């Protein structure tokens, strides 16, 4: 197969890029009549972060449920529950059993009907890779930015999904953009103005700050400091923000719920884009934002933060520049 330059790939329809679109069983969906136990089992087993919901009668796409949506509705999984903290607060855990047991046999249609009125994160398979990347960047009419798009064929049948991870993998293997992958660095992509919280700030502070605008909060040792010890993301906040728990957890310190800084979620400013993308797509936990900075001993001094959206934006700018430089 002849090598395709990335600039050409950008203008190629998704159906010609993604193998096996529409193959039976390849795309995991749930029906509105499926139970919550079925939905969570599917997400746990594969593991997937976004599931298209089909109308049980018509088979048409009616909504898309993400991990954040599930986290908002269910109480935290056992492994995410701050059991000791809640015990200290005197929280009666049997409430969780009752709430979750009640939820087990409810249907996806009943529990997630509020999602069905929102704009669907869909893209036709005839749309190009560039269209898909632009759609992953933009916020919809409800100010939601989708990490995964559902791909529809000409008859609006769900044939696949396309996530930011898929896009990053294609970019990493792109031909003809070595000046971007190897020539640009994390320093060229990062956002340096970052809203942070300290480790003693609490869940309700993070909830207020995230408020739909941000998805990640670096956690510092002192207010407005640059020494970062961890990061809290929207999924972690949504997981603990359950109505049953909020009274007891609203003061839960961010220092206890953060993911600690480590080689898995940090890069140096001179890190090449190709290596940076690896941090997003190769790891076990696949972080959705990477911190940029330098370690001095155990201390990490932050220069900025990078989300996959920053990489997409810079890439499109780079391709534009490249196209403008080409002789007619």
């Amino acid at each position, binding site marked *: 197969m002849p090598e395709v330059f990335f600039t050409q790939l950008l203008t190629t329809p998704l159906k010609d890029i993604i193998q096996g679109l529409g193959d039976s069983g390849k795309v995991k969906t749930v029906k509105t009549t499926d139970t919550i136990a079925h939905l*969570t*089992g599917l997400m*746990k087993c594969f593991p997937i972060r976004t599931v298209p919901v089909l109308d049980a009668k018509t088979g048409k796409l009616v909504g898309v449920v993400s991990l954040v949506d599930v986290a908002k509705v269910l109480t935290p*999984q056992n492994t995410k529950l701050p*059991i000791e903290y809640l*015990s200290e607060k005197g929280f009666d855990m049997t409430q969780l059993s009752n709430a979750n047991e009640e939820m087990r046999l409810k249907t996806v249609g009943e529990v997630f009907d509020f999602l069905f009125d929102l704009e669907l994160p869909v893209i036709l398979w005839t749309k190009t890779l560039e269209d898909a990347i632009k759609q992953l960047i933009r916020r919809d009419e409800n100010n939601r930015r989708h990490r995964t798009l559902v791909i529809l064929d000409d008859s609006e049948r769900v044939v696949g999904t396309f996530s930011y991870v898929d896009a990053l993998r294609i970019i990493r293997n792109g031909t003809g953009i070595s000046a971007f992958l190897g020539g640009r660095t994390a320093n060229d992509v990062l956002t340096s103005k970052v809203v942070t919280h300290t480790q003693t700030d609490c869940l309700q502070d993070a909830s207020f700050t995230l408020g739909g605008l941000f998805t990640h909060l670096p956690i510092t040792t002192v207010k407005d400091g640059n020494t970062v010890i961890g990061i809290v993301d929207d999924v972690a906040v949504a997981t603990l923000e359950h109505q049953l728990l909020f009274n007891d957890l609203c003061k839960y310190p961010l220092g206890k719920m953060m993911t600690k800084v480590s080689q898995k979620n940090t890069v140096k400013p001179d890190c090449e884009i190709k290596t940076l993308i690896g941090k997003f797509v190769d790891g076990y936990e696949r972080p959705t934002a990477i911190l940029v900075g330098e370690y001095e001993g155990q201390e990490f001094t932050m220069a900025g933060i990078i989300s996959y959206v920053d990489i997409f934006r810079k890439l499109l700018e780079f391709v534009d520049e490249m196209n403008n430089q080409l002789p007619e």
Partner: protein
Amino acid sequence: MFNTIKALIQELLESVESLMKTPSGIKPCSNETITLESPINQQPISERLKMLHNPDLLTTSFEDAKVISDDFCTIQISDTLAQALSLVTLLNPTDLIVTDDEGKFLAIVSSLSVALEFTPKSQNVPFKYKNKSIKIGQIGELVVAQGKKLIGEVFTDKSYCCFLKRKQVDYALDEFCKLYRAPDDQSLIPILNEDQTIGGVVTCKGILEYLRNDRLLDESKVENLLEKMSSTKISLEQLYTLLPKDTLESALYAINYLPIEHILICDTDKNLLGLVNREQISVLAHPMYYHLMNTPLGDIMQPISSLHLVQPTDNLKDVIRKFLESDTEVSVVMDSFDSQIPKMVITPRTILQFVK
């Protein structure tokens, strides 16, 4: 004379007060007081010790109590998942202790979490649900690729409980008796040498063995344990039941979202038919075996005939003997002598909670 008595009373009151107020960090050990890192949520020591007839058992150090076992597996952070799997398969430990290249303690990984990185063992898949379309070669590639990953790549950083040899037994009891247990909580506690290398481990069964001859455990009946558990809500490992026609999917949901380790399978009249545990359920939740999610629990449960059933009037020491002298990890307490209705699930941890 009066002043001396007054001074003595004052001293006594102060010492009692200090015991009542002191955060868990301070504990008596023989005649000295040592400041230690502390388990949270402790009751005052006087309250805590009155359950046992011989409270000194809890204030004895791990070393003197001889509860430190050398029966454990270690693996280095730079070892592969395949090496971890070999240990898990051959030796069947509950946990593996992860050390750095100098043998210093770093982390604990459970055998279950190692197993979950791979496809289920074929013997765990009920024959009639084995998917004939899956080729061995197909699975083989996946297993080999997964096996090459390093332990350090796969497991996340978290804090682990470990103690030095001179700490008291009470500390381990606190850790094992936490009111609510998370699935990734340790089933053993590393005991470290001064240089942070592993000196041994303390297990739940080890502590139970050590305490088994106290009169409290020797003379109590199962019903005494039931009484305490129901009055203090000390454990949630009580009763969660599903029907035999309920599927693996429901069990997986329950195990992930409810603070339980065991699910009892009962008929519609609440009669006990069998039991499934976290391990049985979790290992089958693999993409390659997703079709198993619809398997009725009646097909994979441990049948009632294989379970250890006890009556409220049974002696607790007999249940302890069963735990310590066989592979039994769980007993089901029935409602009464002639009843098939289960009342509670008991594990070695439940008995330690009773002591506490």
